């Protein structure tokens, strides 16, 4: 096994690990945000637009770390060849 082959194997495995572990945190965070948003909606249905907006912003910020891990995984898959 030469070095180029090893790098390829390691980067493929790294991409899978990166996406797998990187999805844990954002998934938990987005779930918590959605749960709290649903609770707030049940409490005050007349403020749905503001609650939805705040919930979406919070979800976007939470899930951005997952998207960074997607970027790294794509770089590992296609950037290193």
């Amino acid at each position, binding site marked *: 096994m030469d070095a180029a082959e090893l790098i390829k194997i390691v980067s493929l495995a790294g991409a899978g690990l990166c996406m797998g572990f990187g999805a844990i945190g954002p998934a938990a965070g987005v779930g918590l945000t959605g749960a709290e948003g649903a609770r707030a909606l049940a409490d005050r249905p007349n403020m749905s*637009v*503001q609650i939805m*907006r705040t919930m*979406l*912003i919070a*979800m*976007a910020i939470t*899930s*951005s770390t997952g*998207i*960074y891990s*997607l*970027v790294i995984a794509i770089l590992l898959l296609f950037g290193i060849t």
Partner: protein
Amino acid sequence: MNVAQIETITFTLPGLPFIFEINPNTLLTTWIVIGALFLSGILIRQISKLIPGKLQTAVEYILVYFIDFCKQSLGEDWKKFFPLVTTLFLFVVVSNCICVIPGVKSPTSDLNTCLGLGLMVFVIVHISAIRHKGLVNYIKGYFRPFFFFFPLNVLGDLGKVISHSFRLFGNMFAGGIIIALIGPIAFKVGGILAIPKAATSPIVILLSVIAQGFYGIFIGIIQAFVFAVLALTYISVARE
């Protein structure tokens, strides 16, 4: 299998050190989406009456929903950004949903489209912030709450572009990959269990149709809404 899949065209211009690459697939579907939106706009304009029909009610519902959103986020300036946000939503939703037509790849599963939209929103956000607050206040905003927060604020703004465009791209690309994987997985499983013609059995075809509907229409509409609302939110946050 994929009818509209054409190889990318690369070319160089004399005197420039870059290699230009054109993706005809994305280009074609993008123009189809633009044409469809344009034609449906003209059509709905033609058939709109004082007492609305079903189609007109649906369109008016979407527009009024976005008008409410813009009014709550931007206050009096909602008229400036309402057309942009609604156009972003309509363009992204049609480009996401176009992948339910067999053989057509949605233009948003190409990173170039999503990054282009994201960069466009980025430029609009910062120009509108400068015009609203003035250049001095805009630069001061980067040194809040303390002066050493400047690198963090700059990195946060750059990260917004990446997360905004990669969110749309990642969702649509992942949906496309999962739809494309159903056939090969059925073929492999059919080979292991010795079922003849497993990949073309009615269950697998039904499953792939359901997956296409789920990833194309359900996730597509949600992601388009998130994209438009996030653009609106970035604009309104940068102006405060």
